[in-house]
C-alpha cells in the first residue's frame, strides 16, 4: 500500500452536505431494475455487496429465482466473475400481462480484489435467492496484528 497522507477527518464542513445530498438522491431512486454496466454491454448487473474482513472477502449478489445450474462463478487472476442467465418463465398459456417489473436475461458482474485471494479456497453458496461467495485472503495478504511492547 502506498504511503498515504493523513487526512483531517476531524471536521469536514461538507460532510453533512454530502450526506444530505445522498439522502435526497435516494428519495428519487425509483430504479429497482438493475441496469447495464457499459454502453455496449447487454448483460444486466444485479445488486452486489463486497465486504472485506481480516482474513476474507465476502461477495453477496441478489439472484432471485435462480438455481445453481443457471449461475457460473469463476475466479482467475484475482478477478471474480459471476455470470449466468435469468430465464423468463414461459408457463403462461393465455391471458394478458398487467405489470412487468422483474428482470431477466443474461447477467454478469466482475469484481477485482485489491489483495491477493487464495483461489483454491473460494466457496459459493446460493440460499433464498442470494448468492454468497467467500474468498479467503492469501496468507501474505492477511491482516497481522502487531502488539506494541511498552517499556
Amino acid at each position, binding site marked *: 500500500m502506498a504511503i498515504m497522507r493523513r487526512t483531517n477527518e476531524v471536521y469536514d464542513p461538507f460532510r453533512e452536505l454530502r450526506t444530505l445530498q445522498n439522502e435526497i438522491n435516494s428519495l428519487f431512486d425509483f430504479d*429497482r*431494475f438493475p441496469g447495464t454496466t457499459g454502453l455496449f454491454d447487454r448483460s444486466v448487473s444485479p*445488486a*452486489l*455487496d*463486497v*465486504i*472485506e*474482513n*481480516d482474513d476474507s*472477502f*465476502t461477495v*453477496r449478489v*441478489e*439472484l*432471485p*429465482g*435462480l*438455481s445453481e445450474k443457471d449461475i457460473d462463478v469463476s475466479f482467475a487472476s484475482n478477478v471474480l466473475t459471476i455470470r449466468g442467465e435469468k430465464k423468463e*418463465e414461459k*408457463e*403462461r*398459456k*393465455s*391471458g*394478458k*400481462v*398487467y*405489470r*412487468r*417489473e*422483474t*428482470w431477466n436475461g443474461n447477467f454478469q458482474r466482475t*469484481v477485482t480484489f*485489491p489483495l491477493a485471494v487464495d483461489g483454491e479456497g473460494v466457496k459459493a453458496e*446460493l440460499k*433464498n*435467492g*442470494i448468492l454468497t461467495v467467500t474468498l479467503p485472503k492469501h496468507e501474505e495478504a492477511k491482516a497481522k496484528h502487531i502488539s506494541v511492547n511498552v517499556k
Partner: protein
Amino acid sequence: MDKDKKIMRKTMPAPCDIYEDEGKIILRLDMPGVTREHLSVNIENDELRISGKREPTDVNAGRFLIREIPDRDFYQAYTLDTTIDRDKIEAELAKGRLIVTLSIKESEKPRKIEVHPKD
C-alpha cells in the same frame, strides 16, 4: 400501531410481475433474502398485503468495498377488486421468489349463454 412502526425498518416494494393465466391472476415477486418464516401474505379490507423481512445487513461484518443491496424489507399492498375470490389465494416461496395465485370468482368468469330459437 405507532409503536410497531418505529421498530419497523425501511421498506421498499418488491419488483412484481402481474399476469393472467387461465382464469387466474398470478403475482410473481422477486424477494431475494426472504425466508418463509419472515414472509407474510394477508388480506385486509380488500387489500392484499405482502411483506417480507430480510436479515439486516450486518454493518460490523467488515469493511464494505461495494454496497448496493438495499438494507430494507419488502412491503407492498395491492387492492383487490370484487372479481377475486378471497378464499382461493395461494402463495408459494422458492429461491427468493414469491408466487401468489389469485383466483377469479366463478360467477365473474365469462360464460356463454345459449340462445334457443323459439319458433
